[in-house]
């Protein structure tokens, strides 16, 4: 207790102690979430494919991923003789570290007021949710993660790895545009990069969520996110049915485990980011104040964690569901999807959104309604174009 007393004794030290505690919590949650997510995914895919999934180690197989981790730890850490050694060693670090950094911008609930030694502190339930660049930090951090994959593929001295690395580059230049164009619509409505401003603008109820105002932006961001996290149908760098294990074919032991952890952390973070941007963040579907219920700040914070956590789990369920049901795209198909469909459509969405914000009457209900109709119209139009293209392609064959 001496240590805690000392840390709380000096105001400047308190400024360091609070972030340190938050860093420790985020770190434990992030590292602890990986085995849970992996088990959830394997169980769910087992259920979809009508087999039990892991069920031997521990009740319901809950210890399976833990045992897998220990197995990886005890395996030989092998560096191929032909590999470029420094880059081969650096690549997993480049994948894992940004994956752990990018989650810091997520706020998990409304801020809490506490008084320590007579000094009032406002503690935000997020590590770096106050930074002014906000969402751009997420883009910056995840972009560095791609270097890990490309360099791993290049340095392995293996043809499969090299192809995986090249495909990762091809994938990057496909999804990045859709990702930022999907974001622009939200920025138009909120007018700030700051995460707290983005979340606060969606308070009140689910009709204020950006998914209602930006259905097309949400769709683009979600599809691009599957590319960003290297998940099926866009898991081209790995492509285990074509490339062995893709970019990490030559990796073993804990170096492989680091790529593995980075992938699941990226999914976790991406789910949190898309929840924060489009699905109301830590806000519930209905603000308790509207129902005449007053909650104190601790309960509000608990509900914030509950809602955001629930949204992350729901989105992870979607990730696994799509992995279990969709075939992988070829990478020229993915480029076509991005450059010939999402880029023109994203630009149309941006101009429609800007037009409605500028010219529609300045009432929230009118604007939300117009934005919703415009977004749904775009999705219906996209579906019609896709169906026409499919008919044309099928007619061409027969």
């Amino acid at each position: 207790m001496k240590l805690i007393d000392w840390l709380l004794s000096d105001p400047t030290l308190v400024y360091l102690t609070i972030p340190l505690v938050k860093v420790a919590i985020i770190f434990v949650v992030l590292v602890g979430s990986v085995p849970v997510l992996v088990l959830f995914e394997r169980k769910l895919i087992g259920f979809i494919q009508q087999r039990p999934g892991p069920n031997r180690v521990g009740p319901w197989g809950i210890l399976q991923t833990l045992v897998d981790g220990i197995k990886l730890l005890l395996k030989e850490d092998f560096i191929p003789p032909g590999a470029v050694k420094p880059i081969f060693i650096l690549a997993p670090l480049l994948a894992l570290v940004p994956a752990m950094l990018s989650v810091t911008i997520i706020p998990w609930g409304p801020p809490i007021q506490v008084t320590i030694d007579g000094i009032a502190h406002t503690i935000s339930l997020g590590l770096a949710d106050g930074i002014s660049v906000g969402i751009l930090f997420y883009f910056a951090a995840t972009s560095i993660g791609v270097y890990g994959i490309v360099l791993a593929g290049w340095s392995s001295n293996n043809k499969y790895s090299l192809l995986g690395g090249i495909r990762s580059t091809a994938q990057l230049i496909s999804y990045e545009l859709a990702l930022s164009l999907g974001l622009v619509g939200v920025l138009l409505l909120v007018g700030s990069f700051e995460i707290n401003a983005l979340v606060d603008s969606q308070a009140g109820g689910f009709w204020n969520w950006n998914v209602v105002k930006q259905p097309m932006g949400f769709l683009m961001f979600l599809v691009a996110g599957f590319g960003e996290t290297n998940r099926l149908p866009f898991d081209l760098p790995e492509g285990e049915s074509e490339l062995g294990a893709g970019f990490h074919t030559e990796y073993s032991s804990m170096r492989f485990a680091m790529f593995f952890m980075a992938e699941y952390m990226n999914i976790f973070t991406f789910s949190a980011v898309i929840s924060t941007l489009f699905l109301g963040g830590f806000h519930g579907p209905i603000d308790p104040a509207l129902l005449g219920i007053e909650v104190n700040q601790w309960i509000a914070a608990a509900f914030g964690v509950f809602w955001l956590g629930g949204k992350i789990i729901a989105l992870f369920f979607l990730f696994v569901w799509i992995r279990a049901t969709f075939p992988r795209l070829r990478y020229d198909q993915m480029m076509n999807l991005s450059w010939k469909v999402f880029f023109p459509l994203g630009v149309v969405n941006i101009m429609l959104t800007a037009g409605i914000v500028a010219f529609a009457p300045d009432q929230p209900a009118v604007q939300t309604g117009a934005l919703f109709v415009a977004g749904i119209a775009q999705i219906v139009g996209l579906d019609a174009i896709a169906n026409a293209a499919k008919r044309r392609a099928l007619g061409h064959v027969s």
Partner: protein
Amino acid sequence: MEHLIPYIAIGMILVFAAGFAVVNSLLGTLIGPTKDNPAKRLAYESGMVPTGEANVRIPIKFYMVGLLFLIFDIETIFLLAWAVVFKGNQIDFASGNVGFTQTQFQHYGFFAMAVFIGVLMLAEIYAWKKGGFEWS
């Protein structure tokens, strides 16, 4: 000082994450066995003896798309900057020193961006018709 705290926190988690990653890399080397044999030294090629080097020149079929990406990605950065100020939340229109209303500001922003996007789409259509997105 207050506004620097988030960056301190990012620095802290950077240290944590880097430490975690380095420890992970070292653990595998320290705990795992090291048994060498000639077959293990070969690169993995689905169980066959590898043919030739992996450091060969590989045709990048999407070279032109890569170049177009560099251009269009910078255009989207302009879009992000424009989107944030589009509503004019950062400007104090009520003070009367600005010279135009918020609505006028938004109309101007819309038409200015319409011209920019028009030129951008011309470039996109040109690249498309020239076969810039096709594999060469």
